[in-house]
């Protein structure tokens, strides 16, 4: 579907799609994953050259000052290409916090490094006992003589094995479920007392469990106001929801393209399987699903700057709708490929798995419906 975009935005999207088409083959992706690096440093550098890494940041620090709509364009392209890069955490989650919460010194230190492709930031908001609840924060940060001591566990932190820095939530006051009392800290990856247990993920990334055992950080590593972290975290997660839904839209478009092609060439009973009406209708329904996933996500992108509740309600709505559409498109792409769709060899299964994982990232459908009702005042 053609949304109302500026010429510049259209060109940006086209150039990204072209870049991935010519420079990022599925086989290369799989090789990178097999090598266990978690991402491709070359591709990351190319993303820096293309300006993707500068996209969401303030021009004062070398960024392009892009909007949520620009993010949509970049992430849809990455979804189409199935890029397994630490973009969501570094650019969107950490990026939003840097833009919205960090002081000038932090911005000067970190943003240019990210833009140049030299700094990867992992983000730890979630904990083993907390499911999707951002306020379920049992990790503590205790102030003592000019520094904080951080203790606790963060779960399934993407890109943590290659990250140079983390930004994490920790409780400075209150009980583990309180909305008040959460603060945000930057922590160096090599900080004493921080251990990571890294592992590959189902969708081809690397992630880690982070264990903080009285990790000592200076008070200057606090970002945003003390105890007032939750609204910032919510904004960062809303941005990540919009970006990851755009990625899912890209995943779905690519899946539909491949499935269409497959159905036109695969023959059974003496004819291409695309000649069977049930297949045609399925492909139509998959396309209808994808278009509506795109629409609800673009809506959330366009509403992103219109006030907290409206922003969060729109993001939650996108999350719910995209999950639903992906639960139709993903399995059916596999289904129409037959046994071939069940293999690790074909890219289709990998797109499917990325969609499945996104469905359990930043809230599942249950959680997001409740969040929608809450934020929309229903």
């Amino acid at each position: 579907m053609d949304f109302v975009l500026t010429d510049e935005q259209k060109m940006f999207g086209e150039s990204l799609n072209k870049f991935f088409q010519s420079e990022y083959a599925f086989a290369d992706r799989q090789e990178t994953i097999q090598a266990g690096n978690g991402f491709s440093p070359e591709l990351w550098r190319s993303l820096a050259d293309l300006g993707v890494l500068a996209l969401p940041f303030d021009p004062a620090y070398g960024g392009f000052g892009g909007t949520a709509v620009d993010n949509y364009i970049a992430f849809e392209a990455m979804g189409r290409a199935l890029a397994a890069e630490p973009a969501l955490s570094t650019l969107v989650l950490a990026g939003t916090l840097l833009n919205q919460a960090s002081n000038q010194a932090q911005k000067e230190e970190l943003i240019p490094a990210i833009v140049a492709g030299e700094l990867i930031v992992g983000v730890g908001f979630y904990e083993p006992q907390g499911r999707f609840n951002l306020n379920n924060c049992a990790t503590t940060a205790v102030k003592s003589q000019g520094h904080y001591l951080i203790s606790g566990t963060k779960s399934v932190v993407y890109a943590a094995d290659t990250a140079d820095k983390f930004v994490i939530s920790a409780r400075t006051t209150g009980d583990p479920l309180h909305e008040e009392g959460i603060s945000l800290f930057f922590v160096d990856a090599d900080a004493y007392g921080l251990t990571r247990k890294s592992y590959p993920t189902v969708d081809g990334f690397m992630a880690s469990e982070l264990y903080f055992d009285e990790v000592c950080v200076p008070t200057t590593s606090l970002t945003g106001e003390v105890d007032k972290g939750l609204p910032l975290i919510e904004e960062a997660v809303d941005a990540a929801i919009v970006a990851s839904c755009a990625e899912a839209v890209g995943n779905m478009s690519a899946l539909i393209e491949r499935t269409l092609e497959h159905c036109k060439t695969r023959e059974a009973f003496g004819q291409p399987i695309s000649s069977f009406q049930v297949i045609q209708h399925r492909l139509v329904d998959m396309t209808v699903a994808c278009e509506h996933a795109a629409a609800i996500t673009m809506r959330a992108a366009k509403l992103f700057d219109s006030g907290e509740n409206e922003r969060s309600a729109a993001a939650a709505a996108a999350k719910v709708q995209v999950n639903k559409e992906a639960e139709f498109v993903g399995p059916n792409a596999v289904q129409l490929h037959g046994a071939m769709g069940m293999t690790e060899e074909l890219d289709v299964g990998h797109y499917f798995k990325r969609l499945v994982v996104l469905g359990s990232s930043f809230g599942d459908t249950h959680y997001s419906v409740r969040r929608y009702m809450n934020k929309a005042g229903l």
Partner: protein
Amino acid sequence: MADLLDDLNLTSEEQMFREEVREFLAENMTDELRRASHFTMWALSEFEYGKRWQKILHQRGWGAVHWPKEYGGAGWTRMQKMIWHIECIQAETPSVMSMGRDLCAPCIMKFGTEEQKAFFLPRILSGEDWWAQGFSEPGVGSDLRALQMRAESDGDEFVLNGSKIWTSFADHANRIFCLVRSGSGPKKHDGISFLLVDMDSPGIEVHPITTIAGDPEFCQVFFNDVRVSKSRLLGKENEGWDVVRHLLAYEHGGGGGRSVSLFGRYNWLREVATLESDGAGGRLIDDVDFGRQLAEMRIELEAVSFASDELSKRARAGEPPSRVSELLAIRSRLVSQKMTELAMRAVGRYGIPLQQGARKVIPEVDPIGPEHVLKPMPFYLGQRAGTIAGGTDEIHHNNVARHVLGL
């Protein structure tokens, strides 16, 4: 599950039989065997453990309980088989590589020569022989009749060229039953022969293929000038389709057993939700929304179960399952997949780590997160095959349209 059996109003003999089965299972099931069963992502458990279990069953005389007694079957009543099945699911026994026992054997019994019966059947029973099913080919799946693999007649031998694909566990098989094109005729299925082939024949090469769940579940098998004696024809030359019809009735059928497995799956789903947190200090199982979904699942399950039990009660022993069971299976497969989806969503973000090593029977690494998160994600992925393997959902719809609705 327990209530399932209580519903059946067992006679005192049946009660005794049940005790006997329970005792046998309690004595022979080990943690390893249970774990092998638990982490079965598609249809067959890690081969070594299935094999071990088959040996144990055989020693007890229960190597193929469904077979007629004359071939070594248990000679049980329908109710005894039901009890056996329920108890096995409850005890989480491994899923034995079953293409020999459940698919090839019934065909050998019906179409085999006396020599074939005497040679092959005991070996299947004892676990000496493991059969792979060589039907699908790279260009041919749903439209099996269009198969291409050549069998040239050369004296009293065939020479095989071509390849089979998606052949489950072929890397563990020592024999494979193959559909080959040995002739032609006016109909597409004319000229197909059903051959019993040794996997160690010169010219056979096996390449394992990994599924999206991460397991080397199936293979491509290449045949390059493979010579097979004509004594290995099952049924008549060029009339192998008669055998296939018989076999497919078994493969597509399933009958009453399926719903028992579904209850097993449901109990597992509940257990996952009991162990899982709701993210706010409680248990997921107590969450109102999740509870409602679970209840709806349970209701679907009751419908599936009652329908298929009624059908299997009407079925006569020894007959292939009826076409109506194909209709019911459309729904039961769907319900079965839905449960895996619910379980996958239940474990939330801990479905994301790739945990192949941790879910091996002998674990290679510690799990990330609690133990109960290991299964749901790969199980969800692996069970996508439920609407593809053994005939796709679309093909079953076509069959029901034709044979049940008369379209």
